[in-house]
């Protein structure tokens, strides 16, 4: 005979990097229902758009989330630029792409470390974070900051990468790639990793699409959507294909992120080799005209959607940010029921949750 129990999971839990609370209804060791609760770090950043002018808001959106910081700033700036009819210089497009891909690498490596830690593979955690430090060094050397690099402005970027820095970045990326190849073998073939991920948390392609999943969560289920292929920033000048896996389990999502790291290295190499000389920003005068715009780009965790309504003044009427983790919550709620309690940490981390983004 089995009884149902309700177990609180989080907001403070050893495997959770950020506060999310789940009420798990379990029958013996099997999860039968899951109810989420957020709000522990809700900051109301969207409402600041009515109090800070549209240029100051770049700094605000960069603080929606540290790990996606650069891409939040980029998407916001691209939205304002579209509203104002501003065309940024081609070199700025390349620079935005390079910094965005560096962020994708360090985000995926951070996630991989946390994921490994969630199932007790601490050595993998330490190795991935050691490699990630090289990327953080590149960010610091090129922008002056490690995490919130604040390079995007409306009209382009505020920092440049000179040829000496470009050579050094390429050398560092060679080292990163070499070390990643060792880890790649572990992630793909290690018994412990496969035991804890293969067949765990399966989300079919149809379910992923129906539930609005995005990023590696959707790509791991065979949904072939990657906004970079629409050609924003400098992606229109680069050769790449979206990375898609078909099995829809935690292992497949793992593979997508791992392969995306190698893809990002390739994209940075392409961008550095093709980046033309020229200005890095254009002067932007006046306020955004009245109007509404939606801008999207592919963050490490998936599609981020910025909606902006301007009233013609320097303050925006409305800023709304639909973050990828928010879009992946329904998918998480889909894969939790039916899982074993021991797999809950793995399943939560498999969506690469960013609660800071989700709550804004």
């Amino acid at each position, binding site marked *: 005979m089995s009884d149902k129990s309700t177990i609180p999971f989080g907001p403070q839990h050893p495997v959770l990097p950020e506060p999310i609370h789940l009420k798990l209804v379990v029958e013996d060791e099997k999860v039968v229902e899951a*109810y*989420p*609760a*957020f*709000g*522990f770090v*809700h900051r*109301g950043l*969207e*409402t600041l758009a009515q109090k800070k002018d549209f240029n100051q808001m770049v700094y605000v959106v960069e603080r929606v989330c540290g790990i996606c910081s650069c891409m939040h700033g980029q998407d916001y700036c691209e939205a304002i630029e*579209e*509203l104002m009819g501003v065309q940024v210089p081609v070199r700025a497009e390349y620079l935005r792409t390079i910094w965005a891909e560096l962020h994708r690498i360090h985000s995926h490596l951070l996630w991989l470390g946390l994921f490994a830690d969630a199932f007790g593979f601490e050595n993998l955690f330490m190795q991935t974070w050691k490699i990630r430090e090289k990327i953080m060094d590149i960010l610091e050397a090129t922008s002056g900051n490690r995490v919130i690099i604040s390079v995007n402005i409306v009209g382009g970027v505020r920092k440049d990468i000179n040829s000496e820095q470009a050579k050094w970045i390429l050398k560092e990326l060679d080292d990163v790639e070499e070390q990643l190849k060792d880890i790649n073998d572990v992630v793909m073939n290690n018994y412990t990793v496969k035991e804890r991920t293969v067949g765990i948390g399966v989300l079919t392609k149809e379910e992923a*699409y*129906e*539930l*609005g999943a995005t990023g590696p969560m959707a790509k791991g289920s065979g949904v072939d*959507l990657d*906004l970079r*292929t*629409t050609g924003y920033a400098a992606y229109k000048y680069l050769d790449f294909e979206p990375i898609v896996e078909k099995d829809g389990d935690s292992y497949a999502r793992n593979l997508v992120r791992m392969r995306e790291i190698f893809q990002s290295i390739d994209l940075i190499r392409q961008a550095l080799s093709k980046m033309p000389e020229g200005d890095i920003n254009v002067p932007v005068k006046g306020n955004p005209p009245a*109007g*509404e*715009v*939606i*801008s*999207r780009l592919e963050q490490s965790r998936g*599609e981020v*959607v910025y*909606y902006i*309504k301007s009233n013609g003044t320097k303050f925006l*009427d*409305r800023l*709304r940010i*639909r973050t990828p983790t*928010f*879009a992946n*919550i*329904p*998918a998480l709620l889909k894969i939790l029921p039916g899982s074993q309690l021991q797999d809950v940490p793995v399943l939560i981390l498999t969506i690469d949750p960013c609660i800071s983004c989700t*709550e804004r």
Partner: protein
Amino acid sequence: MIVNSREVEISNLKSEVKKYHDGGYRFVTETCLNLEDKFKIIYTFAIGYDLENIHIITDGKNVPSVSDIYSCALAVENEIKELFGVEFDGLAVDFGGDFMLGESSPISPQADIEIIRREKGGKNE
């Protein structure tokens, strides 16, 4: 993308959303805006990489939930309910105000108009 959203009557909302669902569109999000004494809710759908938007104008009461058509809409509708005080009829899962805000949080903090939805007692702050 400059937003070109089409207004639909609230009475037609679900049938319009159903058309998008049956047409293979994925649900992207809902966005709530304050108007003077009403709310505008924009529904965004995507097929491939293309977006389409429709919107309704509402006083915030008895808005039909589309979470029975797109179950993933329940997250954003719970958020709008808490942040703006908009009432949705037929929410697939109603988190009762505990989804995005805590017990001591302000009520409907993003709403310009005062709509008090007390479900746990206490006063509007």
